[in-house]
C-alpha cells in the first residue's frame, strides 16, 4: 500500500524535449539542456498548481469531470488570461515543414468554404432546462417508476438467485444506517440484525399501476396490432422497473406456450418467443430464477413435433431457428457449473437426434438447437452423424412417396445440416475439397456438402480481404422474427384472449401418475411440461419424454 502510494506521489515532470519543441514554436532556436530542465520543472509545477485549482471549480460545479472551463477559471484566479476557444482534435496541433534551409512549425488551418457551412442544415437547438417533479419516496418507500432506479439492480438479483442468504434488500440497510452513537444498544442491535439476516421476503403484490401495465403489455404482445407489439416489446426490453413483474411474465410465457402448442397456434408462439427475447435483452433483469419456466417453453418451441395447423405450408421452421438462438443465448448467459444448463440441453437434443423414431420436425429442432450452441458442438455432435442423417434423408427423397410433410421435413433438415456444417468443415478440413472424398466421408450429403464448403471457403477469403481493406466491423446477426405468412398472422390475431385461459386439466398434470420421477429437480420441471403437452396430443408425449429421461 505504502509502496503504491509513494509511486503515485512521485513528482512527474514534463520531458525536456517538450520544452525544446515549445521553445522552437515561439522562435527560440537553441535552448540549453540546463535551461530546459529548469523550465520543465517550473512548468510542471505550475501546471499542477493550475490543475489543483481547476479541481476546486469542478467540485463546486458538482461534477466528476474536469472541463476546459474549470481550467480557464483556475487561470483567471492566477491572473492569467484564459485560453479562449481552445479546441484541438489532434494530439499535437503543429505541422512541420522545411525548405529553403528553413524549418517551420505551423498550425495547419484548412480553408473553409463558407457556402458549405451556409448550406448545411442547422443543427437542432439544444433543449432548454426544464423541471420535472416525481416521487422519490412515498412514506419512505421508493415507488417503482422509471425516474427511480430499479428496486433491485441486476447485480442484486443475481446475488439473490445465486447466494440467497447474503442478499440484502436496499431498504434494510437504510434502516440500520444510523450507527453513530448507539453505544451498547446499537451495536447489539446491529449484531442481532446480522444474525437474523434471512432470505429476504419478496413481495408478490403489484401496485395498481403495475397491474395495469402488465395487462397492457401482455395484451399488446399477443394482440393483432404489430405497431403496439413493437412498442410493448421495446418497453419490456428497456424499462428498468420490471423486476417485480418478472414472475408474472415468466408464468404468462410458459402457460401461453403450453396452451398454444396444443392448439398449434404458430403466431402466438412466435409472439411469446419474442417476449422471451425482449426479457433477455433487458439489461436490468436477471432471469436466472425463472429459467425453470422459460427454458421448457423455449425448448418446446424448438423441438415440438407440431407447431402449426398446416405443417406443409406454414413456416414453423423459422420459429424453431429463433427459439434455438434464444436457447443458445440463455445457455451462454446462465450456464454455470451448478445448473449445467448447456450440457443438459445438449444431452436432451442429442438423445432425440439419436432416436430413429424421431419426427423430421423434432429432428430439425434438435439439430438447430445444437448448431446454435457453437462450432465445437457441431464438430463433435453433428458432423459425425452426417452420414447417418444423409442416409435417412436419402430414404425419404428417393424412396416411395410417403407423405409430402416428410419430404418437406427432410428437405429442411438437409439444408440446415449443410448450412451449419459447411462453415465448420471449411475450417477444420484441409484442402483440397474433392467430391469423392466427401462422398466417402459423409455419404449421401457429401456431394452437396462439398459444394457448400467450397462456397464457404470462397466467402471466408473474400471477407478476409474486406476486413483487411476496411476497419474491422463485427456484424452479428440479430435474431429477429416476424410473421412472414399473412394467413397465419391474421388467424393469430383473432384468437388473442384465449392465451391467458389455462385449461383446467393442467393443474392436475403435475401429480399425474405414471410420469417417471427423476431425482434432479430441473428434470422434474420438464416432466410437468411434458405431461401437460401430452394431455393434448399423444405424439408430443413421445418427443418430450426424451427430455424426461435425461
Amino acid at each position: 500500500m505504502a509502496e503504491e502510494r509513494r509511486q503515485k506521489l512521485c513528482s512527474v515532470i514534463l520531458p525536456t524535449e517538450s520544452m525544446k519543441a515549445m521553445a522552437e514554436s515561439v522562435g527560440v532556436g537553441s535552448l540549453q539542456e540546463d535551461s530546459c530542465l529548469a523550465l520543465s520543472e517550473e512548468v510542471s509545477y505550475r501546471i499542477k498548481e493550475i490543475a489543483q485549482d481547476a479541481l476546486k471549480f469542478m467540485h463546486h460545479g458538482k461534477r466528476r469531470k474536469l472541463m476546459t472551463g474549470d481550467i480557464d477559471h483556475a487561470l483567471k484566479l492566477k491572473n492569467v488570461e484564459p485560453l479562449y476557444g481552445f479546441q484541438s482534435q489532434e494530439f499535437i496541433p503543429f505541422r512541420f515543414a522545411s525548405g529553403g534551409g528553413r524549418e517551420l512549425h505551423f498550425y495547419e488551418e484548412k480553408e473553409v468554404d463558407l457556402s458549405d457551412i451556409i448550406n448545411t442544415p442547422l443543427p437542432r437547438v439544444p433543449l432548454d432546462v426544464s423541471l420535472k417533479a416525481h416521487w422519490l419516496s412515498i412514506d419512505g418507500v421508493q415507488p417503482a417508476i422509471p425516474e427511480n432506479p430499479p428496486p433491485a439492480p441486476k447485480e442484486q438479483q443475481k446475488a439473490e438467485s445465486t447466494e440467497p442468504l447474503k442478499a440484502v434488500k436496499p431498504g434494510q440497510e437504510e434502516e440500520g444506517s444510523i450507527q453513530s452513537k448507539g453505544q451498547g444498544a446499537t451495536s447489539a442491535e446491529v449484531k442481532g440484525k446480522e444474525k437474523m439476516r434471512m432470505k429476504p421476503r419478496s413481495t408478490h403484490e403489484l401496485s395498481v399501476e403495475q397491474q395495469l401495465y402488465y395487462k397492457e403489455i401482455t395484451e399488446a404482445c399477443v394482440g393483432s396490432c404489430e405497431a403496439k407489439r413493437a412498442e410493448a416489446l421495446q418497453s419490456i426490453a428497456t424499462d428498468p422497473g420490471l423486476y417485480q413483474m418478472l414472475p408474472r411474465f415468466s408464468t404468462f410465457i410458459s402457460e401461453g406456450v403450453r396452451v398454444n402448442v396444443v392448439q398449434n397456434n404458430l403466431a402466438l408462439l412466435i409472439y411469446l418467443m419474442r417476449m422471451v427475447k425482449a426479457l433477455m435483452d433487458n439489461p436490468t433483469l436477471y432471469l436466472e430464477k425463472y429459467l425453470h419456466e422459460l427454458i421448457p417453453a423455449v425448448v418446446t418451441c424448438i423441438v415440438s413435433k407440431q407447431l402449426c395447423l398446416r405443417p406443409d405450408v406454414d413456416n414453423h421452421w423459422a420459429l424453431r431457428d429463433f427459439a434455438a438462438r434464444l436457447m443458445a443465448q440463455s445457455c451462454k448467459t446462465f450456464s454455470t457449473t451448478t445448473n449445467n444448463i448447456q450440457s443438459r440441453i445438449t444431452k436432451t437434443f442429442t438423445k432425440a437426434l439419436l432416436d430413429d423414431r424421431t419426427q423430421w420436425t423434432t429432428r430439425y429442432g434438435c439439430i438447430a438447437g445444437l448448431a446454435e450452441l457453437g462450432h465445437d458442438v457441431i464438430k463433435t455432435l453433428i458432423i459425425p452423424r452426417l452420414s447417418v442423417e444423409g442416409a435417412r434423408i436419402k430414404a425419404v427423397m428417393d424412396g416411395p412417396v410417403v407423405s409430402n410433410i416428410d419430404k418437406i421435413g427432410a428437405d429442411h433438415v438437409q439444408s440446415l445440416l449443410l448450412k451449419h456444417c459447411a462453415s465448420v468443415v471449411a475450417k477444420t478440413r484441409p484442402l483440397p475439397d474433392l467430391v469423392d472424398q466427401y462422398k466417402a466421408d459423409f455419404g449421401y450429403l457429401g456431394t452437396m456438402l462439398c459444394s457448400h464448403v467450397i462456397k464457404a471457403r470462397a466467402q471466408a477469403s473474400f471477407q478476409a480481404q474486406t476486413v483487411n481493406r476496411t476497419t474491422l466491423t463485427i456484424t452479428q446477426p440479430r435474431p429477429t422474427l416476424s410473421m412472414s405468412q399473412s394467413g397465419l398472422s391474421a388467424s393469430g390475431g383473432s384468437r388473442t384472449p384465449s392465451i391467458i385461459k389455462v385449461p383446467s386439466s393442467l393443474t392436475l398434470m403435475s401429480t399425474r401418475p405414471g410420469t417417471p420421477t427423476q431425482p434432479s429437480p430441473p428434470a422434474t420441471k420438464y416432466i410437468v411440461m411434458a405431461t401437460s403437452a401430452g394431455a393434448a396430443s399423444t405424439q408430443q408425449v413421445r418427443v418430450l419424454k426424451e427430455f424426461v429421461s435425461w
Partner: protein
Amino acid sequence: MAALQDGPMELDTEKEVKPEILSDGTSNLSGNTGNGALSSSPLTAAPAGGAPKQEDQQTLIAVLQFLKRNKLSESVEILRREAGLAEDQVDSLAADGSGGGKEDGGDANSLLSRVSIPAAAAPQSTLTPVPVKRSEDHPDVRVVLSAYNQQGDPSLYQVYYSDLKNFIESVLDCHRAELSQLFYPLFVHMYLELVYNNNEAKAKAFFEKFSGDQECYYLDDLRVLCGLSKKEHMKGNEALLDFRTSRFVLRISRDSYQLLKRHLQERHNNQIWNIIQEHLYIDIFDGMPRSKGQIDSMSGSLGGEAKREVNKAKVFYGLLKEPEIEVPLDDEDDEAENEEGKPKKKKTKKDSIGSKSKKQDPNAPQQNRIPLPELKDSDKLDKIMYMKESTKRIRLSPENLPSICFYTFLNAYQGLTAVDFTDDSSLLAGGFADSTVRVWTVTPKKLRKVKSAADLNLIDKESDDVLERIMDEKTASESKILHGHSGPVYGVSFSPDRNYLLSSSEDSTVRLWSLQTFTCLVGYKGHNYPVWDTQFSPFGYYFVSGGHDRVARLWATDHYQPLRIFAGHLADVTCTRFHPNSNYVATGSTDRTVRLWDVLNGNCVRIFTGHKGPIHSLAFSPNGKFLASGSTDGRVLLWDLGHGLMIGELKGHTDTIYALKFSRDGEILASGSMDSTVRLWDSTKAFDDVEMDDFTAATGHIHLPD
C-alpha cells in the same frame, strides 16, 4: 504556548522567545479583522499596544513606520500616544532598527523581518543571508519563510526523522498513538526546510522515504507538497503559507509529552525540538492518553486539532422568542440549500411549542443582541399560515418516514451548480454554470413582473385589488431567467419573505435580485475571488457569503460594504450557514474545519476538526443546538454547539455530500451526495444518545463507537 511553558525549559531562551512573537503576529493578522460594533467599518487594522518589551516596541515601530509612509499621520499620532512613546523615541528607535544590519533598512519589510528574527538570533554565524524578495500579494511571505533559516545538517534530516520514528514505534501503545500525531507536521516542516535551503535532492529523497508513512487523509496535502520542490515555488503557494502562518495544533497528554521531551533531550535531537517549538502548538492535558480512534476522529484538518480554549466561549444556541403574535414556533430552518424538494414535513408538536414560547430559553441570546428587522404585516401573515400548517403535520420518525417529492432538472447538461427552495416550497431557484439564475414556480401560481412605471401611473391606486393590478399579466410564466453574472453561479438563496434572491458567482460578486421585477438590485463587491456560497439570515436583511479569498463576510442588504469579515480559515470558505437565531454563522472550508462565528463581535467561537476532506455542506438543527456537516470524504459529522464537541458520525455515503437538511422538527436529517443517493438519518437517535460525562466535557475527548 502557555501549555508549553509549564514544562521545564532547558533550551536557549532565544528559541523560546521567537515563537511567541510569531504567534502574536499571526493572531493580529487573523484576530483583528472582524472587530467593531455593527457599524459599516469592518477593518480596524492596528494591533493594540502591548507591554513595553523590546520586541513589542519594535513591532510597534514597524507599524508606525508603515503608517507614516502611507501618510496616515493621525493614526500615527493616536497609536504613539496610546503606546506612550515619545516622538523622538520613535524616530531614534526606528533609526536604530534600520541601522542594524540590513542595507535596505528603512523599509518596513525588513523591519518586519527583524521583528520575527530577534536580535539575539542575528549574530549566529550559520544564518544564511535572506535574499530580499518582495511579493506584493503576500507581504508576510518572507517573514514566514525566514523562520527556516536556522538549520542543522541537511543530510542528517533523514536520520533525525527515522530516529524519532523508531522511538515512537518503540514506546508503550498508549503513548504511541498520541506521539504519532507528530509525524505529519514534522514531516512537512522538515521537507519544507530542506526545500527552502535548496537541498532539492535531499528533500526529494526525504519525501520519498517517509511520505508513505503519513495518514491517508493527508494524501491531498502530500500531493501539493510533492509538486513543490524549489524555493521559488514556496513564494505565493497558499497551501504552504497556511501551514506556515498557523501553528499546527496537537493535543497530547502530559505523560506522552514528557516522554517525548526526555527522548529528544537525551539524543540531543535539537533539530526536531526546534521545529516542535517553533511550528507546533502542543496542547497538553492531564489525564489518560487518548486512543488511536479518538485521535483519528478529531484529526485531519489542515491546521491540526482545535485548541481547547477556542471552544470554551459561551454560545447562545437557543432560539429567539417569537415577538408579539402568539405563533409559537420559530421559522428556523429556512434557507438551507436543498437539492431535493421535500413536501412539507409534517408534525404535531403543539403542546411542547406552546410551553417553549412562554419562557425565554436560558441558552438563547438576548432578543436585541443583534438588531433584527421589524416584522412586516406580510411576515405576520406568513407566520400564521405556518402555524396553521404546523398543526397538520405528522410527526416523522423512522417508523413514519416522509414522502419526498423529487424535482429533476432536465437538459441541464451538467450546468446546474446551486439550488434553493423557498420555505413554503412555492419557488425554486437554480444557479447555472452559464452564469444565469433561473427561478421556477412549482405551484400553479405563475411568476409575474410588476408593470413598468408608466403603466403603474395609470392604475387606480384606491382600488382594493391594487396589489393584483400592479402585476403585468403578459409576463406570467412558469420560470424566469436572471442575467447579470459573468461566471458560474455557485450559491443562491431566497429571502425569507420571498421578495429577494441572492446569488454568488465566480465573478466575485454577490447579487441581490428582486422577485417582483426580476431584475438585479445590487451587486455586492468585496470578495476578490470566486464566491462559493451565500445565504440569507432567517430573519432577512443580513446575509453571509464566503469564497476563495478564505474569508466569510456578513452583509446587510442596504450596505454596499460588508459589516463583518470573518477571517481565520486557512483555505477557501466553501459553505456558509446562519444559525436559526441569526446570532451566529457557521462556515465550512477546504481546510477541513468548520468554524462558528459570532455575528455580534466577529469572533470565532467554535472550531470543529475531524473531517478528512473539504466541507461542502452544513445544516443547523431547527432547535439550534446541533450542527451537521458533510464533506468530500462522504461522512456526515454531528456537532454539539453548546459543548463544542463532535457527537456523531454518520457513515454510509461513498462520495461528496453536497446537501444536508433537517426536517422541520429536526427528527430526520436528509443528505444528498454525489454517489447518487439521498439518505435519511434518524437524528433524534444520534442526539439523544449524547452522554456527557465530566471527563469528556473537560477535555473535549470524544468516544465514537463504530
